[in-house]
């Protein structure tokens, strides 16, 4: 059976990942919609920015976050002095790091789903007196739900596995920022930690597989419901 320390790593990971997904949900849908449906100056720049975490070494992302949100960072300094909030090296930092790293996966998947929604159906909704805002929530989002959901699961799984940015920005503090991957890394480093590492590896696998299967099942049901498959 896993030890208290191991359970705490699992619990922390789930909490961090859930928060990370919640953090990115609204900006993610917003970015996806902008990229899918709007033409504007700087669209390419936004596209590149969104995708950057996918190709940058995670350590770099973590370091940039540290520069921005660390106690002496651009935003972090203001947060510390003005509001007394410290972000770096807390579980919040882990959630933010995971959100930034998972963000491109959510945006990519949602963007694709929104692009596939027939604009003509949205037009029909508008002729029925629905404002663009209402059309978005009653037509666009429901019709892109399978893709949105897939993106959320991917981002969640990515958050569970986030290591490089987390350890750089949030550190490796037991019970605070030692998430599953960080804990596994730590156990591998210490003599006699192999058994613990193996148990956490097993938990990681079960978690990821469950998430993927769950999302697939839900996506299929949704697709059937919205009639994309008959």
């Amino acid at each position: 059976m896993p030890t208290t320390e191991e359970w705490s790593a699992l619990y922390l990971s789930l909490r961090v990942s859930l928060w990370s997904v919640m953090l990115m949900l609204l900006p993610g849908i917003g970015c996806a919609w902008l990229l899918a449906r709007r033409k504007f100056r700087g669209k390419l720049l936004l596209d590149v920015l969104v995708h950057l975490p996918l190709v940058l070494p995670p350590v770099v992302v973590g370091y940039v976050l540290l520069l921005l949100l660390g106690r002496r960072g651009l935003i972090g300094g203001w947060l510390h002095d003005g509001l007394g909030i410290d972000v770096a090296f807390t579980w919040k930092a882990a959630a933010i790091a995971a959100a930034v790293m998972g963000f491109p996966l959510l945006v990519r998947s949602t963007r694709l789903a929104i692009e596939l929604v027939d604009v003509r159906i949205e037009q029909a909704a508008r002729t029925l007196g629905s404002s663009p805002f209402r059309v978005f929530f009653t037509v666009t989002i429901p019709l892109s739900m399978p893709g949105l959901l897939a993106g959320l699961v991917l981002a969640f799984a990515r958050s569970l596995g986030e290591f490089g940015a987390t350890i750089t920005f949030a550190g490796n503090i037991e019970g605070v920022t030692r998430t599953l991957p960080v804990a596994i890394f730590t156990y591998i480093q210490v003599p006699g930690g192999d058994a613990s590492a193996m148990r956490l590896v097993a938990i990681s696998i079960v978690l990821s597989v469950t998430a993927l299967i769950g999302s697939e099942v839900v996506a299929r049901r949704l697709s059937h419901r919205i009639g994309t498959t008959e």
Partner: protein
Amino acid sequence: MIRASIHLQRDGFTLDANIETDTHVVGIFGPSGAGKTTLINIIAGLLRPDRGSVVVEGETLFDSSRGIDLPAHRRRIGVVFQEHRLFPHLSVKGNLIYGQPRPQRDNREREFLQIIDLLELGDLLKRRISQISGGERQRVALGRALISRPSLLLLDEPLASLDQRLKQQIIPYLQRVRDVSAIPTLYVSHDLSEILQLTDRLIVLERGRLIGQGRYTDLVHDNAVLVVVHDRGMRNVLNACVVRHEPSDGVSVLQLGSVNDPVCQLIVPQCAAPSGATVTIAVQPWDVALATEPVHPVSIQNQIRGIVRRCTLHESRAIVDVDIGTPLIVEVSRRSAVALELTAGRPIVCLIKSNAIRHIGGG
């Protein structure tokens, strides 16, 4: 009443039209590429013209010179598109009530039920869109537009995606809507006989230009309109009532006009409609011959007396509008028209072979 003055230029296509309607249902006819759908999208607010204005029932929806451009969702214009464009994630009922106005009116429920009844949608309400047929989908789309209480109804080729048999099944529903509702309607089609089953008021477009608007029987005298209409379903669409069948001869006897206002009798190939039923028949103008006196003996079954209302000469043909109690458009050669001295007021006999009369709907 709809007034629209529109100018729009898009990659090689120019739409330039001033239209004005004052009747309940007006058909917009033109070959594909004439700009019919573009016009509809502009009126609905889905496409912005370069300049012009759109006024519906006294309300200015668009006016480029005054900077007015009401967004589509505030125009209260119901549209039925060629593709049904129903919401696949909602049930039939969910689709129908999507555009229903907020419950400020008590008769909301009653109105909903009336439309369900009118379009016979009661059995479909719980189904998903993927579970209903093409014809049913268009009926739901029509119901959805009506339930949104539009001040103008635009029907953009609503039957074009259906096969001939299904088309004829939907037309009676369109006729019912026309007869029951007072909503001004523009009916777009590239099939003239489809339009003529709903109205004789036309707007004719070709290559982005308006080439005529008014009553069909007046428009066909115009050469530009005639050229467009001639090979695209030009015909007389008439309503008739079945008087009796004569199975031994394989014919049916019809009464043109309504029961209270009989026009004349016609012999047609036997139809399946029961006696007393109302049917729609079509006669092509060139299937009618004209004579100054009844002809005997002759194989032609129908000889109908009428009076020439108007005759116009065109390149090789003449278009004659004969009043037989209802207007009948006849095409004869220019030479015959001259020889018979077909001028307004002249009594004439229309000869129609019974086999040239086609039963196209009803019954």
